[in-house]
């Protein structure tokens, strides 16, 4: 699904990713943990195609195609989804029209006709149930005036609408109370399938109680320095990151 090889990336001449390797197979859930500033969000941004970042080396293969060769729109249409750490408010653009444009963009890529109004509304209804997204929020401007939890639920709703091959969740747990965390996680779990992969980026182990990963990786200073199963997350929660950092420097 995703093969990252020796990826190097920088922003404003500061090197953040320093040769990152990661392979995700279809159906797998990988978690990336790491201390602040280790490059977790940079990885998400570079994969999604944010142009502020400069890719200095390495390659990323996404389901047989060169991901780095595509712009952000093409990556999304090819099946990559990024759930934002800070979802953006777009005043004046209704959530529902925003999603219709997104769904139709994907359909255009697949050579399909734009979705019919009724089919679209049925789809919205069905997917909104997954994350208990209020009808009121669907018609409001994108994320405008949404609470932190509502914004994150809206991200998962969008993911469900777009049915990506690979979903990257960038600190989706930040700013969530326990109820919202449960709803968001249940939405994600409902979407797990043998041909859909997840990359869950988080600072805390808490989210991984709900979204149980197959693999956990530790990112330190732009490289993955340690990988293991889900039990690694518990170990990190207990011991912090310092022992790994010491391991690396040692």
């Amino acid at each position, binding site marked *: 699904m995703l093969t990252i090889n020796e990826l190097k990336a920088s922003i404003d001449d500061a090197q953040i990713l320093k040769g990152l390797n990661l392979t995700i197979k279809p159906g797998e859930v990988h978690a990336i943990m790491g201390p602040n500033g280790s490059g977790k969000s940079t990885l998400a941004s570079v994969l999604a195609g944010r142009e502020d970042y400069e890719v200095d080396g390495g390659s990323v293969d996404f389901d047989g195609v060169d991901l780095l060769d595509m712009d952000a*729109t093409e*990556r999304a249409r090819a099946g990559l989804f990024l759930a934002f750490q800070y979802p*953006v408010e*777009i005043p004046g653009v*209704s959530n529902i*029209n*925003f999603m219709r444009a*997104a769904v139709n*963009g994907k359909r255009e890529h697949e050579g399909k006709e734009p979705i019919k109004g009724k089919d679209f509304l049925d789809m919205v209804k069905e997917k909104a149930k997954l994350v208990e997204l209020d009808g009121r929020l669907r018609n409001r401007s994108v994320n405008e005036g949404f609470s932190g939890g509502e914004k994150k639920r809206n991200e998962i709703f*969008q993911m469900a609408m777009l049915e990506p091959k690979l979903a990257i969740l960038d600190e989706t747990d930040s700013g969530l109370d326990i109820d919202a965390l449960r709803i968001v996680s249940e939405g994600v779990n409902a979407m797990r399938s043998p041909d859909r992969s997840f990359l869950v980026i988080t600072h805390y182990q808490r989210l991984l109680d709900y979204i149980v990963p197959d693999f956990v990786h530790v990112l330190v200073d732009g490289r993955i320095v340690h990988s293991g199963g889900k039990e690694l997350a518990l170990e990190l929660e207990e011991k912090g990151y310092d022992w790994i950092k010491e391991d690396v420097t040692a």
Partner: protein
Amino acid sequence: MRDTAKPQVMDRPKKSVKLAASQQQGEAYLAAVEAVLGSARNDYDATLAALPVPHRRVERWKYTPVAPWWTDVASTGVCTAAAAGCEPCPVPGLDAYRLVFVNGCFDAASSDLPVHPGVTCMPVSQASHEQPVDNDQPEHTEWFAAVNGKFGREGLYLRVAKGVILDRPILVHHHSSGAGVANVLRHDIAIEANAKATVIQWSSASADANGSVNALTRVAVGENAQFALDKVQDEEGQIRHVAFEDIRQSRGSRADVHTVTVRGQWVRNDLIFRINGEGAHAELNGTFLPLDGEFVDNHTTVDHRVAHCTSSENYKGILYGKSTGVFNGKVFVRPDAQQTNAYQQNANILASDQASMNAKPELEIYADDVKCSHGCTIGQFDEEALFYARSRGIGMEAAKAMLVHAFIGEVLQGLAVPEVRMEVEHRLAEKHHWETFNDEPGA
């Protein structure tokens, strides 16, 4: 409807700065126009001689280059829509009365005048026996308006009698066609007490047109009357367009003016509301999206002369390529105009690093118990919002169109006639190569 308020400090005549070179060019221009149109009103000669021809050292013209006006005026051009090859009605499906003016001439065959009890509507050239529209003329303060006074012989005359509600809007369609044309139009409108009318003013020009449009609209809105003007400028070719709207409001009246500049090489809109009666509301909104080489200038004035009135203003511009925009929003609140509530908003997006915008809110408040708010911004497209949309699979251009729609949507929504709004959206989409402007759910 004479102004009743005592003259204030802002009424003091501005020091008139004449520039010898500009005066000469102005005179040459007048001679050239006169050679083609002939002169109807020599009584404006003294006014024209007294007024300074606009130039950059006059504050009101600081950002507005008048040099393009000093080109030759060659001909009057054709006089009918048929000869000009233009659709009499530019708005498909519009159910409206219609007056068509081609190169400044009234085209009776293309027009459809209202036959409605209590409504007097005719070309202004045939209205000499009608009651004049009682309105102080702006022709005595602005040189270009005085040019209109001298040469303006054709336009709309409309009087809607007390309590009459016009059943359909009146479309006034200006069209310019051919080389070196000089369109001079004056529209006189009186909406009497408790009456209601909507006017659409649509300016078009063919691709081969070059020349000028000088349109002056005077409106007297009576007590508790309602008047709405949807003004659309969509001119191809090389047209210089200067427009004046002078709107007087009586007690309890409401006047709405929406100005949308779709296309225009050089456009200057001068809009003034004089609120003379308590309880009146003025609404003025506008939007402009110039492309490379286009120039759009909106100068607005809201003059609160009496107490207990409200005004709301919202102008939004998006400037592309090497285009230039100007916004100047004056709001006067006179000493007697207590309890005024005036709102002004002007927001602009520079869509290119070569576009420029000159924006200036000017609030002069002489009363102490009023609520006046204003905001003025010049910024760029929200990069975060663009990336967010693209990360959902929306293309860059579609994402921008979405932000544009969100930005100017509230102005377009205010247009009085829905068919006009839809046509404007369509033409904006066509101009900017957006796939669609339609944002209605289920479409």
